[in-house]
């Protein structure tokens, strides 16, 4: 340790400090920190913060509030052409911004570790990751290149990478997002820093991987008594891991409270206070009526170029969607959700199986027949900006389907566009604007309005809320609920955001590695998940709980490793390699989707044989 422990603790820089950790000495203090990119206003403006020894601090803020810029600024860095124009950062009382460059460099990486979002971009694309971990270690520790290699392997093992020796040979682009993030954690922790700054470390990762990573980080830092500053947009992460919560807005900290106080503050939650029960319309009562859409044993595979192998994107998926119903399709990325959505509309042709629209098989329809039905089956995609032609005005965009599918006159179309805008709560003046003039929330409403233009029966919503800020997400969910109640349209809602799914869906289908593993009502799936994958998925879901944190309780249901490649699928149950409940039989026996007595469909013989406990559902076989 080169740094003297500062005995005379600085006074807290900002008001309203937490009382929990007041006695511990401050590790990092920032005051009045300001970072700008040329033109005013500065991105970070008068940023104050204090982190004490051993504290796990959450920094919550929406995108664009200056979180990432602040994270780098705490290390005395700014992305060019940005510049730290004012303020002070003290590491154990020493001013980080004015000390000599060599001293700064020593603190970065050795005493303060950093993890950022987009880990693959943060790794050098041209060097093997083992070398990169070794380079950072050697920049701060005396040791040979061989010792650095060994250390890299040790670090990768510590952050839970299987076969770490082989992984040191990998390049960044050969790693999955989760794996690359582990490498960054390995780099950040390689010199056992006293403070770890983690800037949205799990954004873009699946919930199961997110929980794995955060658990790992929590354990590693607790072991070394390091402090952590965890920067995130997700209230769930903050509520489940942190001791203290800071809220950032427009470049400065606006709130500072203990995590306990934060958790008790009123917030939405899974199957929560029942705002869903009020607004979720009940689908058509008539059970005998043909479903709007029936998916009948659909499979889709893609050949792998230059090989006889194939990617199994969808395996034998079947489900129905009734009029006015919303079916949620959830699962990790790579599980085949998007391919299913596209197969329904024949945007991708199924390799096997059929899709029936009101009893009529779509696969055998010709061009004209399909065009007739196209207007009834619509889709809304994930990225609202990319789904619109940037050169077209909103009027042109919304008129296009009307030109194709109706014989309205120009004036008729303009009138209909006004109706559509009103339906999605946008003023009619929006019609004259272009996509670049609108925010992503409004743009997604335009996409929904376009899908609604020809009064469809069914819309695939493919992750429509995933790029939206939390507030826009909530209002879009409310819009979709209202539209369904008014128009009786059916939705397939594809998402990995379980909170949103729980608010909007009547039934839920859980997909894992190309298969549907469980289908049930929202109540069944969220209150009493049965399939081991569903259980793990819900256990990974970081929903704020008023009383306790995830790290305060023992979590049983967790998956090991990552989703396997869909090219070489396991012989038996697809989950077997990651499942905490797997036994020998699981490795050899392929699993069938079977109906349980409570009406849900399940693909796990152990659950059906009631070997896992938790529920005693009498079973009948699916015809």
């Amino acid at each position, binding site marked *: 340790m080169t740094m003297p422990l500062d005995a005379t603790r600085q006074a807290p820089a900002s008001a309203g400090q937490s009382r929990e950790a007041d006695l511990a000495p401050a590790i990092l203090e920032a005051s009045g920190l300001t970072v700008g990119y040329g033109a005013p206003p500065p991105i970070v403006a008068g940023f104050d913060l204090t982190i004490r020894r051993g504290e796990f601090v959450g920094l919550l803020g929406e995108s664009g509030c200056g979180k990432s810029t602040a994270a*780098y600024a705490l*290390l005395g*860095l700014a*992305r*060019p*052409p940005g510049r730290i124009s004012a303020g002070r950062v003290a590491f154990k009382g020493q001013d980080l911004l004015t000390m000599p*460059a060599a001293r700064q*460099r*020593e*603190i*970065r*990486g*050795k005493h303060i*570790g*950093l993890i*950022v979002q*987009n880990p693959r*971009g*943060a*790794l*050098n*694309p*041209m*060097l093997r990751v083992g070398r990169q971990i070794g*380079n*950072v270690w050697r*920049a*701060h520790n005396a040791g040979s290149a061989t010792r650095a290699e060994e250390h890299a392997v040790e670090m990768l093992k510590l952050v839970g990478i299987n076969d770490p020796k082989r992984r040191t040979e990998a*390049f960044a*682009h*050969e790693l999955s997002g989760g794996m690359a993030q582990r490498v*960054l954690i390995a*780099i*950040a922790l390689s010199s056992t820093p006293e403070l770890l700054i983690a800037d949205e470390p799990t954004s873009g990762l699946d919930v199961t991987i997110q929980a794995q990573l955060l658990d790992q980080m929590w354990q590693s830092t607790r072991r070394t008594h390091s402090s952590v500053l965890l920067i995130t947009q997700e209230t769930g992460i903050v509520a489940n891991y942190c001791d203290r919560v800071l809220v950032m807005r427009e470049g400065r900290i606006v709130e500072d409270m203990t995590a306990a106080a934060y958790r008790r503050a009123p917030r939405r939650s899974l199957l929560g206070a029942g705002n869903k029960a009020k607004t979720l319309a009940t689908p058509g009562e008539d059970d005998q009526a043909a479903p709007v859409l029936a998916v009948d044993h659909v499979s889709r595979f893609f050949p792998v170029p230059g090989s006889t192998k194939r990617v199994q994107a969808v395996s034998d998926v079947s489900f129905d969607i009734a009029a006015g119903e919303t079916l949620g399709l959830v699962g990790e990325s790579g599980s085949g959700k998007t391919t299913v959505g596209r197969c329904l509309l024949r945007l991708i042709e199924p390799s096997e199986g059929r899709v029936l629209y009101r009893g009529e098989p779509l696969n055998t329809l010709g061009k004209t027949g399909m065009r007739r039905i196209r207007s009834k089956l619509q889709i809304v995609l994930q990225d609202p900006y990319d789904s619109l032609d940037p050169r077209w005005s909103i009027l042109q965009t919304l008129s296009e389907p009307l030109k194709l599918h109706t014989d309205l006159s120009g004036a008729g179309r303009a009138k209909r566009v006004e109706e559509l805008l009103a339906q999605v709560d946008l003023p009619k003046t929006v019609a004259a604007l272009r996509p670049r003039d609108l925010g992503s929330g409004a743009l997604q409403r335009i996409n929904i309005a376009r899908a609604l233009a020809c009064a469809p029966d069914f819309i695939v919503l493919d992750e429509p809320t995933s790029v939206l800020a939390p507030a826009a997400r909530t209002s879009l969910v409310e819009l979709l609920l209202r539209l369904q109640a008014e128009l009786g349209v059916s939705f397939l809602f594809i998402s990995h955001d379980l909170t949103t799914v729980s608010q909007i869906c009547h039934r839920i289908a859980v997909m894992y590695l190309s298969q549907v593993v469980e289908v049930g009502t929202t109540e069944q799936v969220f209150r009493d998940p049965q399939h081991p994958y569903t259980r793990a998925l819900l256990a990974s879901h970081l929903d704020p709980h008023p009383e306790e944190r995830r790290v305060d309780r023992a979590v049983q249901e967790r998956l090991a490793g990552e989703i396997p490649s869909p090219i070489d699928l396991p012989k038996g149950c697809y989950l077997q390699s990651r499942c905490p409940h797997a036994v020998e039989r699981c490795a050899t026996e392929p699993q069938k989707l079977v109906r349980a007595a409570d009406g849900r469909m399940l693909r796990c013989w152990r659950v059906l044989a009631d070997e896992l406990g938790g529920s005693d559902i009498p079973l009948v076989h699916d015809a």
Partner: protein
Amino acid sequence: MLLRYIGRRVAVSIVQLLGLVVVVFFLIRLMPADPVARLVGLNASKEAYAQASHSLGLDQPLLTQFLQYFGLDGRGGGLLEGHLGVSWVTNGSVLTEIGQTLPVTIQLLTLSFIITLLIAVPVGIAGASRPGGAFDRGVFVYGLFGGSQPEFWWGLMFIFVFFFKLGIAPAPLGLVNPMDMPSEPITGFILLDSLLRGEFDVFLDVLWHLALPTLTLVFILSGPIIKMVRQNMVRALGSDFVLYARAAGLRESTVTRYAFRIALAPALTLVGILYGVMLGGAVLVETVFSLGGIGQYAVRAVLAFDYPAIQGVVLVITSISLGIYLVLDLVYAVIDPRVARS
């Protein structure tokens, strides 16, 4: 894996070359030109004309000429056996003539590109370290100034200043002192040959004669290459992984190395393309300094409608360019592992 890739690339290149030769063969014969009249003069008798036409083989049907050129007419001695034919103007073997002129150009270009890179890379990196600074702006002005004027003009200016005014450069009359008797070539590259023989005075003399043409080319070429290096370096220094490398406390030299490696690849591509272009395009500099390179040979062949020579030059320059691109792709793959896998 690598050998298979190279093999496939070479095979594709050979097909491309054959196609090119076929196209060039017919295209030049479509020109509204009369190489026979060019050779015997407009006032020649009918008999003389016919005889010349016969000796060039131009009285034969096009297809026969084509087969003959490739050596497919049974008499052999065509392109497929490595013969480029005989020049109609000099009656010398085209292969031999190219063998004499090509090394001159390659020697000049290689020297120029090496010096250009030695200057452009550090200058580009220095400019990128402080974008918009005084040094960076100076380099920008130089790039505009140097690159916007033709190379022969700069060549003439340099001759005027360094030979005529200052008298420190040799007369622009070729690569060797006209009074010296040139030795029998070994490789054709005079610099290399003189070293192989141990004639250091000749080596230095040739370098002295190459100084002004090289200076001219370096002056022209360094502009775009500095700009490329600087631009890519600025982008690399602003990228996530460089910022992260700084945050991880890596030494500044390591960080610069990280960024430079990623900035290098596009600059090398530009060098390769410019090299290919300059093989034929160095003609102006060659002419100004009377070097007798491949560019001058090509111009002479075109003006004389010397079909075998034109075809030979096109074939050789294209082969070299394709070879350079192959080497570049391989180097690129070594620098950037992402390319190797895709």
